[in-house]
């Protein structure tokens, strides 16, 4: 990766059709993120943070400009290449956890490794390690409906981290959690960022999350309003 750049966007614009007209969700976004950052896209609802996160996560493509993630231009990737990028290098954490309800904690965390075709013994070790990071080794046989919201989000973090991706994209990860659980999972992610040098990019408007971010990218009406490199003020 050039100069340790993990994400680079150039004049990134995203427009959605709205009836006969178009809605511009992102406009001329120029952004660079370096490996190991713990940053966030901050802004109110409709500011374009989730859209930007989705494009960086190769779940969507830009209308104009480009998003280069780990030296790959997302807009030019085929569906198969985009899937490979997500499978090998990206981890996702969602507001609503998005765990598979009929699978156990172990199986949920194991899923990305199955896609990467790790052996059974490797998978077992890696899943235990990931659950150890989030402190859930005692819940491996439980299913999501048996867990609290905080525990579910920790499982989601373990699932995102288990393959040790280069980049984790977290969309409003604390929106459904109380303050104690929010701090708990943010501390977990911060620890993983420090220990594994994984890059974290959040989309949030939660003050608790913002307090942990080392770089804050403020979005307003689809454009970058300001970028702050803040000292940790949690």
């Amino acid at each position, binding site marked *: 990766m050039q100069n340790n750049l993990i994400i680079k966007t150039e004049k990134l614009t995203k427009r959605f059709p709205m009836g006969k007209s178009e809605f511009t969700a992102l406009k001329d976004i120029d952004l660079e993120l370096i490996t190991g950052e713990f940053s966030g896209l901050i802004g109110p609802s409709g500011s374009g943070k*989730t*859209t930007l996160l*989705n494009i960086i*996560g190769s*779940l*969507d493509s830009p209308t104009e400009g480009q998003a280069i993630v780990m030296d790959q231009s997302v807009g030019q990737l085929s*569906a*198969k290449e985009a*899937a*490979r990028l*997500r*499978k*090998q290098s990206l981890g*996702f954490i*969602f507001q*609503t956890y*998005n765990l*598979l*309800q*009929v*699978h156990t904690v172990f*199986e949920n965390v194991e*899923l*990305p490794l*199955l*896609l*990467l075709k790790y052996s059974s013994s490797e998978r077992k070790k890696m899943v235990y390690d990931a659950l150890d990071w989030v402190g859930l080794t005692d819940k491996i046989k439980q299913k999501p409906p048996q867990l609290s919201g905080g525990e579910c989000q920790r499982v989601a973090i373990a*699932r995102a981290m288990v393959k040790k991706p280069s980049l984790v994209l977290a969309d409003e990860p604390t929106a459904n959690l109380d303050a104690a659980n929010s701090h708990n999972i943010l501390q977990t992610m911060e620890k993983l960022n420090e220990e594994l040098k994984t890059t974290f990019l959040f989309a949030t408007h939660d003050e608790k999350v913002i307090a942990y971010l080392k770089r804050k990218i403020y979005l307003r009406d689809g454009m970058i309003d300001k970028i702050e490199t803040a000292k940790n003020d949690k």
Partner: protein
Amino acid sequence: MKLAIKLAFKNLIGAGLRTWLNVIVLSFSFVIIIAVKGILVGWDRQAKNDMTEWEIGGGQYWHEDYDPYDAFTLEESHAPVPGEFTPEIEQGDMVPVLMTRGTIYPQGRMQSILIKGIDPEQTLLKLPTNKLDTAVAAIPAVIGSNMAKTKKLEIGDYITMRWRDANGTFDAADIFITGIFTTNVPTVDVSQVWIPLDSLQSMLLMPGEATTLTFRNREKARQDTGEWKLMTFDELVSDIEEMIKTKSVGQSIFYIILLILALLAIFDTQVLSIFRRQKEIGTYIALGYTRRGVVGLFTVEGAMHAILAALVGAVYGIPFLIWFANKGISLGVSSADYGFAMAETMYPAYSLGLIAGTTILVLVATTIVSYWPSRKIAKMNPTEALRGKLQ
């Protein structure tokens, strides 16, 4: 594929009651298709077996003018048995039968019959012709139970029988019923009287002649000979095969309706799944699945209903089918009502081909109805799917 199967199995089991309802309905289809088809296979097997044993052996030669559906051809359809068949006849591997029209007068009623002459010592056919080898004042005769019932005849009865000889002259004599046999083959029973071949040949003034020649060895290469037309085993059973084929179509409608009901339930489940599980679909894509992969996963999930149904069907179906094969099914009709070989109790027969064929049919049908709604996933926007937004 292995991953898709693993995930699909987990998802199916996790879906609980809904899965089991679909699986049970589909398993009914499995068991009923096999049971119904088993009856037809059993019928086919039993009919061919009975016909082989009672009437056609391994095949027949017919006199070229003989038409079993036209009794008037009998006057002309006879000829001396060719000498080339003598060794086979002497070894008991070929049985000549001479036929003519006649009339009997049981209790003073006039009844048209078919008189058939056969060697009393033959063992090729199951007919109890040994009972013709009896010295009595009249001509010894054996008849089938249907003939006995409809003509109100019993063993030991004397009846007057009339016929026309080769010159067209009417003649008459008494016959004596020495045996009554029970068979599922109406074409050797209904309105027929079996008497010794020698007697009939001398009655008709046709020494050494026959109408049909039934042989034992089906495998031996044969061809038409002079006035004699070869009728292979397959040609002789073609009527019953046609009939069973017709029956098969009728019964297929029954199980196709059941199968459609089961497939509709699976289709409905698949459609609902795709709406209800959008977030899950989005998650799979976010984790690195391609959309095609997710379509495959959902298709495997649907198709797996058929595999589970086969297993569930096996649990209760195997004991049921074994019991059914032993007990059989009574159709409540006599073979004479149908006019061809049919046992009153039908015993189903299940072949490996039948079971494999049914499994493949249900599996393919289930896969198609599972794939159909799953194609919608390929058009899904993953970012909206992740939010669980209906598309």
